[in-house]
């Protein structure tokens, strides 16, 4: 295990950005800093610590505690160093007799209203108030006992100023008795998170931190439990419950969050092999010290009692599980896979790599398919989320990835957010975007639902285009028409970077009246005027960026929509400079990485087609076996082939296809038709109900490796504890491969990365030493870009000229009609993550215990549905029941739900429609009917009983 001690000091105020350098003297030490820097920060840079309480470099200076006062030659009095900017030639003294007296007096006042239970306090050893009392040499408090906020009782009875602890949040405690009202928490909630849930109520001695209204607790307030307030609190007022329970951590392991595609860097604060808390890293280049509820708090699943730690097998899926040794399980799995190939052909088996596992693990699973099983039947969960991004951006720009880093959002003048709900799905990015919106950047949201981003405080008016699900292409093409018709395009950019004649052909295509806002209004229900306003705002903004999510890709025209997005960016020149770009918000932590690592059946790592002889030669040499030049099966094709009796075996690592893939019945019938299904996971997930072999997996806290986030950033994942199941996931894959004759002998994931770098041009410069040194790098990372590439397509597109693709709207086959008059669309919620296997095994259930159906009040009234009623949602694929929430966030004709809970199983309802180019399922549009119901559907009853049957485990045989 590696420990990292990185000087993570607090400079007191945030860094200033300026090209002008200012020189000053602090306590006789010369220091040069950018103009706009505070005296406090300049002193810190000079290595001098100025005492402080209300200042922290997470938030802007406030100047309330008066502890950081200094003397500056030529200036009167004792200014606060946090709020005083530097000036040329300034001479600063941070320690004088006058200052020492003032500071001691300030501390004496603070301590006079603070309990002195330091020894038993949860912040003991990690308390800035304690540190400052020491720093200023406070030795006595001269004030007589009097009015205070900390004593429960005084001589006369209960203390009217005392407030009990707020323990409503399951992850942290608010103890008002210890609060010094520095308002760091209030400012972090505003400036860092952007939620504005906290405030200071009252004035003077009556000032108190308050979550929401007087009657609110932290849980009932707007608080989203991101942990920013807890992180900045200098005392034990806001503190993690785990710290209260366990004590002070003793070492730190720097790692990467395993939830969404933002890929936040975290410091795992450990005591031995136990995580005490996860704190977002200030030097994390994706998150810049911020976190959300999931990464910060919802990691308890890693030690949940439901985790299966032993390999298990069974002859038939109707049998109970039998716990066996690793040898027995691996032999059973290998023998059955080989038998399926012997009986039905080499291509009768396949693998699914995991977008939750590391790059190295993913690489090995696809290598197992291609080099050991001898088939290109490998796919990954990206199939069901961002495969259209890969296809669309590769066709238009030349690379299957987003163009910018997250830092770029700080320079954008307008963000166009399409089919994404960042405050729930990508919360840390959302906070960074909100910060920019509060500074005045414009916002356009194209989404069937009124998402929370539109309700950003202090933002100004955002434009919302509430389109009918399935009409993305029509709306974006119409926006392009407006840009062309009104000549708002960037001719210089197009001439220089794209093919002008091709643009003219696209312009001619666009100018057809069928793409006019008026025509598109009929299909999309978006008022023509709104389409025009959005097009003009996007084209006219000096730097406009596009961020999109699965509301773009998970459609029958997902790939076309991605190309329409790329066209908009190209025609307006919004590529290649900070603040612009086309940025897919990736769903899972390593969706980008799993795609990069050759998980798709048609391409090797680095997006090189299997039919390319030169690439194949590289791998044939590296792996020492002949390789197939033919594309293999994608996940939906595997299911179809299984039902045709020709696909018989599957090795599925870290993906719960039964819950996450569309048309559940189709998936379960396909799995039931196979001879061998091997599931490798932390838990007995829904897919394991149809498996013959269960191989226990390891959590991200238990392994070394890398994840690649939505910005192409390769982040280190570091082992913080021993795998509870005995092996890291790559080791399990290696053991399975070796049972089938592979002879692999990797002893550490760094060796796998060496192989990746050796065989993949865009990863040629990547190695663990570089990642340890730099923290992270963004691919391409090679000779041309030794430290990686934050911004792509700066001087030219990777493919040469940018490619305009015609984007004709084709209505999905999934249309609402008399039987199924409503359109169902799906999404996720902040506190839960995808199939919920992780978050449902944490206290996040407090926020979201069940999936609910959002329905417009008029649609509900027509059906006699009241708020909170059980309703049945039926499509041509199946039906399920859940409870209804009446809301105007969805338009009439549209209903919405999440898919986090296996008992509701939204995917029983979704269909097998898919994207024309990639077979990415059309999750976002399903024609449904909603009717009142009084309980679980027949399917749900059956499923529950089948699930209970499938999860039986026989007691281990006596040794």
């Amino acid at each position, binding site marked *: 295990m590696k420990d990292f001690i990185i000087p993570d000091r607090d400079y007191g105020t945030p860094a200033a950005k300026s090209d002008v350098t200012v020189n000053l003297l602090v306590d006789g030490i010369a220091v040069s800093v950018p103009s706009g820097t505070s005296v406090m920060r300049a002193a810190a840079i000079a290595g001098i610590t100025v005492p402080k309480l209300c200042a922290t470099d997470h938030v802007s200076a406030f100047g309330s505690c008066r502890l950081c006062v200094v003397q500056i030659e030529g200036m009167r009095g004792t200014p606060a160093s946090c709020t005083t900017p530097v000036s040329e030639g300034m001479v600063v003294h941070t320690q004088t007799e006058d200052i020492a007296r003032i500071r001691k007096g300030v501390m004496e006042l603070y301590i006079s209203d603070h309990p002195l239970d330091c020894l038993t306090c949860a912040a003991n050893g990690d308390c800035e108030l304690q540190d400052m009392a020491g720093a200023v040499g406070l030795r006595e408090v001269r004030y007589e006992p009097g009015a205070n906020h900390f004593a429960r009782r005084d001589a006369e009875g209960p203390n009217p100023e005392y407030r009990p602890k707020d323990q409503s949040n399951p992850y942290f405690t608010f103890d008002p008795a210890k609060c010094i009202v520095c308002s760091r928490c209030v400012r972090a909630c505003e400036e860092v998170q952007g939620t504005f849930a906290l405030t200071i109520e009252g004035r003077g001695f009556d000032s108190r931190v308050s979550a929401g209204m007087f009657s609110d607790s932290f849980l009932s307030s707007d608080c989203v439990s991101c942990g920013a307030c807890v992180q900045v609190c200098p005392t034990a007022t806001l503190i993690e419950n785990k710290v209260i329970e366990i004590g002070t951590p003793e070492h730190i392991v720097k790692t990467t969050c395993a939830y969404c595609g933002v890929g936040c860097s975290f410091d795992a604060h450990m005591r031995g092999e136990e995580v005490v808390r996860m704190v977002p890293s200030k030097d994390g280049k994706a998150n810049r010290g911020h976190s959300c509820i999931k990464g910060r708090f919802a990691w308890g699943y890693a030690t949940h009692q439901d985790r299966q730690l032993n390999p298990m097998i069974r002859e038939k899926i109707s049998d109970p599980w039998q716990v066996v040794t690793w040898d027995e399980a691996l032999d059973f799995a290998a023998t059955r896979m080989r038998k399926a190939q012997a009986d039905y052909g080499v291509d009768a088996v396949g693998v699914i790599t995991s977008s939750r596992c590391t790059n190295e693990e993913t690489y090995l699973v696809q290598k197992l398919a291609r080099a050991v099983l001898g088939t290109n039947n490998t796919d990954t969960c990206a199939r069901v989320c961002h495969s259209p991004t890969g296809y669309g951006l590769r066709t238009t720009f030349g690379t299957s990835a987003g163009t910018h880093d997250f830092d770029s959002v700080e320079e954008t003048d307008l963000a166009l957010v399409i089919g994404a709900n960042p405050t729930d799905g990508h919360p840390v990015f959302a906070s960074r975007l909100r910060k920019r919106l509060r500074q005045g950047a414009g916002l356009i949201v194209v989404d069937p639902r009124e998402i929370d981003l539109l309700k950003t405080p202090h933002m100004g008016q955002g434009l919302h285009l509430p389109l009918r699900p399935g009409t993305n292409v029509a709306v974006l093409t119409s926006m392009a028409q407006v840009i062309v018709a009104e000549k708002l395009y960037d001719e210089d950019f197009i001439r220089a970077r794209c093919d002008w004649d091709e643009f003219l052909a696209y312009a001619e295509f666009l100018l057809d009246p069928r793409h006019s806002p008026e025509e598109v209004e009929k299909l999309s229900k978006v008022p023509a005027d709104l389409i025009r306003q959005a097009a003009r705002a996007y084209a006219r903004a000096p730097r406009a960026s596009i961020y999109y999510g699965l509301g773009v890709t998970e459609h029958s025209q997902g790939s076309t929509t991605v190309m329409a997005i790329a066209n908009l960016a190209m025609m307006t020149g919004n590529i290649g400079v900070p603040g612009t770009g086309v940025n897919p918000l990736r769903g899972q932590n390593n969706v980008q990485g799993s795609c990069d690592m050759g998980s798709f059946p048609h391409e090797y790592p680095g997006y090189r087609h299997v039919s390319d002889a030169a690439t194949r030669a590289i791998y044939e040499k590296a792996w020492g076996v002949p390789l197939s030049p033919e*594309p293999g099966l994608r996940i939906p*094709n595997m299911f179809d082939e299984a039902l045709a009796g020709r696909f018989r075996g599957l090795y599925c690592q870290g993906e719960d296809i039964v819950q996450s893939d569309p048309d559940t019945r189709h998936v379960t019938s396909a799995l039931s038709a196979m001879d061998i299904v091997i599931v490798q996971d932390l838990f007995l997930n829904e897919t394991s109900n149809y498996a013959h072999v269960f191989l226990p997996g390891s959590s991200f806290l238990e392994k070394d490796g890398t994840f690649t986030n939505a910005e192409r950033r390769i982040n280190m994942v570091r082992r913080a504890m021993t795998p509870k199941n005995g092996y890291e996931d790559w080791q399990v894959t290696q053991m399975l491969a070796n049972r089938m004759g592979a002879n692999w002998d990797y002893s550490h994931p760094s060796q796998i990365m060496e192989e990746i770098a050796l065989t993949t041009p865009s990863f040629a410069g990547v190695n663990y030493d570089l990642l340890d040194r730099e923290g992270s790098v963004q691919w391409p990372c090679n000779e041309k870009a030794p430290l990686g590439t934050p911004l792509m397509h700066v001087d030219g597109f990777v493919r040469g000229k940018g490619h305009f693709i015609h984007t004709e709207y*084709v209505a999905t086959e999934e249309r609402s009609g008399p039987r199924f008059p409503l359109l169902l669309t799906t999404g996720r919620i902040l506190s839960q993550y995808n199939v919920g296997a992780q978050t449902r095994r944490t206290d996040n259930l407090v926020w979201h215990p069940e999936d609910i159906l959002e329905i417009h009040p008029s649609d509900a009234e027509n059906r006699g549905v009241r708020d909170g009623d059980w309703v049945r949602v039926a499509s041509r694929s199946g039906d399920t029941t859940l409870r209804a929430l009446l809301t105007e966030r969805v338009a009439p004709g549209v209903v919405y739900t999440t898919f986090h809970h296996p008992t509701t199983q939204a995917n029983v309802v979704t269909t097998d429609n898919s994207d*024309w180019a990639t*077979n990415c399922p059309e999750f976002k549009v399903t024609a449904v009917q909603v009717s009142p119901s009084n309980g679980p559907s027949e399917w749900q009853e059956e499923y529950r009983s089948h699930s209970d049957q499938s999860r039986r485990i026989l007691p281990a045989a006596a040794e």
Partner: protein
Amino acid sequence: MSHDSKLIRMATQMADFFRSQPGSPAEAVAGHINAFWSPRMRHDFVGQIASGAEADPIVKAAVPFIRVAESA
């Protein structure tokens, strides 16, 4: 929906995209199928069209450009 009609449906979706692109839509559909479908899927699909399955004219015109491996 049966396996047979699903392949044709997928090809039709491709035709719907490529019919508005410059160039030969039939060749483009075939190119996409060659790049992304397994040999067996291509074999089945060509067989279905050959045995007279109903399909969009572009889909039918794509068939001669589809690579069919001998072993499939």
